């Protein structure tokens, strides 16, 4: 049975992560594993002792003190984490998913994903999380690292969820774009959803040829597919298209450009995720 993993942190985005996971799981007939990662412990600023003096048995005393503080904080975090996961499980079971397991992990998020990556088929994560109120317009701090660290498809949930009635594939002929198309093609359960393929006109004929090949692949898989070549700037045109065409899901290859380009010009992927208000399914 295919398996989905939903990464939640108890913020408002966790709801749409659950909704999206439920939607996909029921279509794919998959089980869901809901995972919450307990963040790294914060150094308590208030109780820090600036007296700068160390007395008898300083080391053992300090170790005990730090361990006590840590254990108190960790117990609270554990309780909260469990509550979040239990809520999510109930929510998913109410939505009709029978096979839901919950996991509370004490490790860092990228390590956690590396641990179970081989067993899952799809990873669902929110576009933002608990930091959403403070950092308007910024993406979640874990998002890029999670997507970069895994080879599995990552579904980035937006704040609102609506059932997927049409979806868009942003195609650029690269490896990850082909992965996106092939993934969609073998998802028989979605074949009833109309698909639109677009590519950005970069002045050569190869992009058009690639697009046609992709279109044929999708059509052979049973999709009702249309295609189009758009002009202009990739980020702007694609997000405009998503809005105008009222698409409910965007598939694309992620972080394809070199790191230097990302540093200087900015990442297309990041911009896309930021500007689109719909979930984005990323492939590497």
């Amino acid at each position, binding site marked *: 049975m295919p398996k989905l993993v939903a990464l939640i942190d108890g913020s408002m985005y966790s709801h749409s992560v659950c909704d999206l996971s439920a939607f996909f799981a029921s279509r794919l007939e998959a089980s869901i594993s809901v995972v919450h990662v307990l963040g790294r412990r914060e150094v308590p600023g208030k109780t820090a002792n600036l007296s700068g*003096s*160390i007395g008898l*048995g300083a*080391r053992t005393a*300090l*170790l005990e003190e730090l361990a006590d503080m840590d254990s108190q904080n960790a117990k609270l975090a554990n309780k909260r984490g469990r509550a979040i996961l239990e809520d999510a499980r109930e929510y998913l079971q109410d939505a009709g998913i029978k096979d839901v397991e919950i996991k509370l992990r004490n490790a860092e998020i990228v390590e956690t994903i590396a641990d179970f990556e081989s067993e899952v088929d799809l990873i669902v994560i929110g576009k933002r999380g608990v930091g959403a109120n403070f950092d308007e317009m910024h993406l979640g701090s874990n998002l890029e*690292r999670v997507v970069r660290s895994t080879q599995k498809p990552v579904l980035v949930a937006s704040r609102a969820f609506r059932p997927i009635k049409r979806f868009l594939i942003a195609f650029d002929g690269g490896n990850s774009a082909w992965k996106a198309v092939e993934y969609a093609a073998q998802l028989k359960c979605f074949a009833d959803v109309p698909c639109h393929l677009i590519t950005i006109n970069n002045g050569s004929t190869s992009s058009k040829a690639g697009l046609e090949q992709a279109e044929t692949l999708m059509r052979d898989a049973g999709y009702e597919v249309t295609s189009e070549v758009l002009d202009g700037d990739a980020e702007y045109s694609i997000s405009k298209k998503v809005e105008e065409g009222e698409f409910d899901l965007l598939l694309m290859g992620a972080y394809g450009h070199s790191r230097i380009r990302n540093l200087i010009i900015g990442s297309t992927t990041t911009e896309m995720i930021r500007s689109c208000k719909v979930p984005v399914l990323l492939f590497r």
Partner: protein
Amino acid sequence: MNTDLLPRLQEEWFGNTRADLLAGLVVALALIPEAIAFSIIAGVDPKIGLYASFSIAVIVAITGGRPGMISAATAATAVLMVTLVKDHGLQYLLAATVLAGLIQIVAGIFKLGFVMRFVSRSVMTGFVNALAILIFMAQLPELINVPQLTYVMVAAGLGIIYLFPYVTKVIPSPLVCIIALTSVSLAMGMDIRTVGDMGELPSTLPVFLWPDVPLTWETFMIILPYSAAVAAVGLLESLMTASIVDELTDTTSDKNRECIGQGIANTATGFIGGMAGCAMIGQSIINVKSGGRGRLSCFCAGLFLLLMIVFLGDWVKQIPMAALVAIMIMVSIGTFSWSSIKNLRDHPRSSSAVMLATVIVVVTTHNLAIGVLVGVLLSGIFFAWKIAQLFRMNKSLSDDESTRTYQFEGQIFFASVDEFNASFDFKEAVEKVVIDVSMAHIWDISSVAALDMVVLKFRREGAEVEIIGLNEASETIVDKLAIHDEPGALERMLGH
């Protein structure tokens, strides 16, 4: 991981900014006396120790492998360079520092951090205690042949340091101690030794200078023993302190990167006129206690230290040595592991012996590396001695009294070979002797040689010898035990 580089750097440097800055400031105050005191021990101007502390702290913050640990000029390395300075002068000290740094870099590249696994807890405790004693002993020159007033000042200083935190924990008590004692000594016009009496303080920021030594083989041979000792001591202390900080912060660190980082820092320090240093246990504990966790804390400690010295130099000259002595006594009290004295009663005698041996050797030779080496050797010997006790022999005679069977269980190695040999009764005249080692483990060549000799001896007495189970027993003779990846393979190998 490459993908993680920028966020990780951000986390390590700015993940705890406010606390790191404050902790760095607190540590810098404790670093002033140390840097000055260690220069005096080594017999050089305080300027050398202060430049060294600044440069080591700042560079290790960037290159080291243990965020939150404080490195600077230390007692451990200072005591090793006394004779070098006396015999050959300052420039040789700087050259030795550079060479020590290079040796440390090589050690890090060859991943010698792994030798830490042989340093047992008793050795570590012994090391920490010996260091505390060394720091305390380094204060003694300031406490003998001095005006009576000094003792009063030191006592007052200690009182402020330990009692002021009950008033408020927000202002570092060493700072209060320094300010109070300085004001009192100025106000009452006391005639006691001050920092200014110790030598020249830096008035400028450090500059690059190539050590003024002839680049010959002779120079190399002069500085090599000192550099090797400094490199070894520096690495040992840094790796042990890193383990301690690991425990306190419940995080892991990269030991080999720490070796390389220390090496780079020492090399660079030699070129700006500073002496070698390493990580410091006392200051690292102060740092963690004050909330410092990231690299910024060590960086700030070095930076604040230099700024205070260079720009407040005139004030620093007035600080009475008594204040600095009080701070150093506080550090040594905090570094000493007082629970180890209580544990002397409870712990097995072998562990206590190792700890005491380490302390005694360090205090007598003033060389931490030799002490640790002795401690490690003793732990190894005690361990072998304990394992040699895991040895049993059963003997039985066949019904027709013609065959004697010796069955061995346990560990056969160099320390138990004597007992092995003593188990056989060569005077007994039997036709056949069966030696069953299937339940025993043969760990090295001495055991194989002993077995061969036994077989030979029995043959010479006219008995026929059969060895059973040699294959299972010898599984443990190879250097890298091949543990097959099946569940239970380990139990099977050690348990049979």
